């Protein structure tokens, strides 16, 4: 052994090298204050190890980045831990950098002969920050995408070179594949390469000059090994423990969510990046928040202000840091440097805290205090004249009002931010849920799953297209009063449309209430008359049978079990429907009755029926002469350009109203119509397969390189629905108020609520739902 070592030493001189590395003299003994550099090297080592493993599983492109990160996090063994360590160690590294810088400056270790090494350290700091910035984008989730947009847009404000520089970094004019490939090359190649190069020189110079020891020496000189190495190792262990604890998401322990397991831990993964999806929770990583907050200080500064805030001031600060060794030569230079550092770090801490406070204050502020003020604000707003008149020109009161108004605005802004964060979490959770479905992620990427998901799109589409007339509110059976949204709506509440409770309500005195036809022309129609005058004298059991039979036409997946069980009742109900003096007097029902005077009850409330109704309520099958105000959303067949909505979009609305979308573990639900969503892709209307859908289906067979992800040619209003979106333009209400029959409410209504689980009871306390009309099972 020794002979081998001797031989190797004679060829390489490794003993001298090892000796030099381990037995560096530490004047005054090992100290804890010397550990920071070593912890940084350790942190970088962790980043390299975890980074290479991540690299082996990561795929940088717009359709695979999020997907591969999802796979690392949720499917690979311990992937969450690997990613968590990489994520939190990056943050730890920034903190350690700050500590190392403080130690160096306070100890005056930047002074001769160590100036160059100090500068190298600052360069290393820039490289680490660059690694953080580039790494933030790589998961290609909403958070990283929007933060990177802002960061790269700020780059473009640099005069002359800004725009081309931005284009080079982004890899073109738009964010996409090449943004990812470039950021990845920077993150995994260029920056770490430079970092290693500078680090080697940094450490070599450090060894050359020796440690800048703290005076007075506390004890005798020692050597690096083992005394200082022990201290360094303990410090590294502490760093690792902190990182591991952060991986366990300690925030959750206290939030009542309990401790999650496996993939729910580690680093977060947001919903896939979507340039057309409003993301109001966009924030940089916390250690860049001070820069983010700093930009707000340049209000009214215009272009110059932005340039100052984003580029000039941060560059000047860096310049001051670079000048420290030179400034330090003056008598008071060192004090100046220490003071500068304290001011800088203090400023950074203040701005960071300020940004947090601005975003989160609503979480701990009691909104009650603003209820009174809100009335005044509603009345006065920020209108100078009104304010002056209201406060009788009392400058003190006006100033007080202005102060309160500003506080209230900040509170509301924070509320909006928190709501956006919550919404982002819902989207992220859903994206992961859909990606974990047995069908997997299509080649078009996970974003296509969200875009074709009824649960995600339904509320947005409903708000945009339906909510100006309809409501969608679950009303508890024992509710004393109807929700305001239902009262305000001018068309039926579509929550649980066509399920047993809904039909039971329709076939009761509630028909003329606000949940059904109360605010429509049909309140005076023949159907309301028939229900109130004729059906009211029916046997309760007969009404139940009709309710069950009619609701069975909808083939709701949520009612499939009940429908199967109640086959006999359904049969009896059908006989009642086709009874001579009954429904078929006006309606068509399968082979009985005729179209023309009232909606077809064949397949009433089924997916196909609902799509038809929304597409064109004036069709002979629905309300050829008695449509109240419902617009035709797709008057022409298929996806004609003049149709308001595509078939796919209508299908999404219908699926959402029917509560049929993919839920983990529900695939095997006794199916009424085609399985609600064994595969998320099934939620796409099947009638008119969209380009994407067909591509998806053919994807495996044809091995198409990439299915275009959202082929719908017609733009639809994005998610956020203005209070009243697309106003259905009314057919004059007077047009045939005398309506032969029940109008199933058709267009969607109001206030997209949480997609319901069970059908709502039709109305307040006296829920007409009776014994046999049981609530549908939870979906």
């Amino acid at each position: 052994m020794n002979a081998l070592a001797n031989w190797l030493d004679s060829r390489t001189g490794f003993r001298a090298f090892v000796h030099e590395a381990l037995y560096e003299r530490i004047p005054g003994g090992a100290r804890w204050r010397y550990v920071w550099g070593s912890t940084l090297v350790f942190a970088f080592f962790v980043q390299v190890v975890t980074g290479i493993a991540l690299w082996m599983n990561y795929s940088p492109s717009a359709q695979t980045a999020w997907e591969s990160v999802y796979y690392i996090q949720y499917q690979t063994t311990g992937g969450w831990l690997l990613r968590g360590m990489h994520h939190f160690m990056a943050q730890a590294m920034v903190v350690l950098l700050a500590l190392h810088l403080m130690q160096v400056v306070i100890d005056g270790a930047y002074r001769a002969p160590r100036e160059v090494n100090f500068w190298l350290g600052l360069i290393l700091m820039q490289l680490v920050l660059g690694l953080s910035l580039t790494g933030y984008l790589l998961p290609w989730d909403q958070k990283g995408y929007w933060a990177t947009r802002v960061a790269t847009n700020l780059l473009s404000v640099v005069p002359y070179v800004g725009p081309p520089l931005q284009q080079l970094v982004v890899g073109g004019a738009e964010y996409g594949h090449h943004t990812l490939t470039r950021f990845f090359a920077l993150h995994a190649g260029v920056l770490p390469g430079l970092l290693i190069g500078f680090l080697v020189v940094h450490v070599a110079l450090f060894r050359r000059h020796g440690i800048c020891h703290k005076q007075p020496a506390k004890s005798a000189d020692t050597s690096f090994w083992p005394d200082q190495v022990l201290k360094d190792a303990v410090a590294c262990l502490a760093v690792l423990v902190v990182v591991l604890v952060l991986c366990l998401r300690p925030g959750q322990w206290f939030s009542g969510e309990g401790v999650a397991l496996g993939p729910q831990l580690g680093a977060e993964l947001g919903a896939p990046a979507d340039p057309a999806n409003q993301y109001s929770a966009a924030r940089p990583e916390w250690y860049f928040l001070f820069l983010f907050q700093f930009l707000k200080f340049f209000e009214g500064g215009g272009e110059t202000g932005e340039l100052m805030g984003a580029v000039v001031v941060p560059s000047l600060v860096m310049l001051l840091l670079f000048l420290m060794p030179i400034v330090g030569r003056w008598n008071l230079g060192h004090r100046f440097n220490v003071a500068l550092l304290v001011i800088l770090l203090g400023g950074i801490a203040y701005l960071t805290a300020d940004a947090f406070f601005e975003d989160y204050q609503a979480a701990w502020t009691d909104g009650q205090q603003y209820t009174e003020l809100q009335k005044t604000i509603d009345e006065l707003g920020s209108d100078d004249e009104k304010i002056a008149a209201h406060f009788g020109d009392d400058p003190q009161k006006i100033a007080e009002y202005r102060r309160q108004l500003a506080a209230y605005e900040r509170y509301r802004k924070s509320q909006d931010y928190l709501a956006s964060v919550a919404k982002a979490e819902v989207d992220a959770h859903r994206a992961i849920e859909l990606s974990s479905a047995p069908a997997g992620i299509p080649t078009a990427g996970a974003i296509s799953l969200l875009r074709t998901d009824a649960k995600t799109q339904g509320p947005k589409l409903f708000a945009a297209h339906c909510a100006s007339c309809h409501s969608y509110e679950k009303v508890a059976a024992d509710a004393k009063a109807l929700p305001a949204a239902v009262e305000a709506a001018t068309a039926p509440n579509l929550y649980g449309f066509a399920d047993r409770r809904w039909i039971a309500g329709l076939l009761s005195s509630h028909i003329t209430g606000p949940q059904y036809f109360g605010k429509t022309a049909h309140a005076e129609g023949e159907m309301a008359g028939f229900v109130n005058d004729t059906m009211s004298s029916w046997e309760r059991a007969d009404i139940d049978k009709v309710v069950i039979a009619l609701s069975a036409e909808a083939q709701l997946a949520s009612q499939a079990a009940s429908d199967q069980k109640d086959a006999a009742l359904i049969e009896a109900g059908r006989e009642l429907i086709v009874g001579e003096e009954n429904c078929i007097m006006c309606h068509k029902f399968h082979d009985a009755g005729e179209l023309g005077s009232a909606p077809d009850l064949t397949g009433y409330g089924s997916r196909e029926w609902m799509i038809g109704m929304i597409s064109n309520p004036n069709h002979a099958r629905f309300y050829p002469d008695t449509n109240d105000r419902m617009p035709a959303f797709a008057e022409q067949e298929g996806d004609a350009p003049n149709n308001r909505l595509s078939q796919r979009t209508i299908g999404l609305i219908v699926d959402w109203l029917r509560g049929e979308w993919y839920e983990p573990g529900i695939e095997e639900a006794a199916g009424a119509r085609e399985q609600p969503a064994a595969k998320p892709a099934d939620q796409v209307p099947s009638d008119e397969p969209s380009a994407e859908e067909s591509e998806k289906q053919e994807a495996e067979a044809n091995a198409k390189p990439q299915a275009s992800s959202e082929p719908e040619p017609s733009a639809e209003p994005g998610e956020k629905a203005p209070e009243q979106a697309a106003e259905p333009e009314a057919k004059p209400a007077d047009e045939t108020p005398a309506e032969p029959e029940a109008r199933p409410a058709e267009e969607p209504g109001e206030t997209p609520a949480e997609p319901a689980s069970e059908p709502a009871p039709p109305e307040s306390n006296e829920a007409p739902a009776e014994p046999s009309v049981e609530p549908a099972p939870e979906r």
Partner: protein
Amino acid sequence: MSQARPQPSQPTSVPDANRRTFIAAVWAAVIGGIVAIVPAASALAVFLHPLRRQARGATFVRVTPIDALPDDGVPREFAIVAERVDAWNRSLEPVGAVYLRRLPGAEQPECLSATCPHAGCFVAFDGTSETFKCPCHNSAFALDGAIIQPSPSPRAMDSLECKVDGGEVLVKFEDFYTGRADKVVKQ
């Protein structure tokens, strides 16, 4: 480095030696330069390629039937679905969003880009205060897109050209550089 070279075995005059050293140095630099420049230039050419890449041509994109946009002066958000070329992919997909609004009685809608001219965040419309608010650095804009001061934004929201054709609203969707007082289209 020329000093380090072994002396030639044959005695030569000093100017001669200097000339030989000089020529060798020039050749070394030239050849060394060539072997370094060729791969570097090739790398640089590809690195700079994005500068030559054109932005999405600004053509009019169909956004919505005009029927779906009531003339109540309230802005509504619409996704822009356009052909997008992302390196090797060409697809029809949402590329951004706009706000459309129609003033009472107006035939023609007004169109504003949803991208904040300050730093590019997605501006939200707040129905309560009837203003546009950027969720990032607190820029706020009036219904017509004008800046509400004090604001960090250097200009008003970007209006986009739009027209109505055959009952359809068409918008010329363009990206502009952010953070500037003037509206410059990204090329």
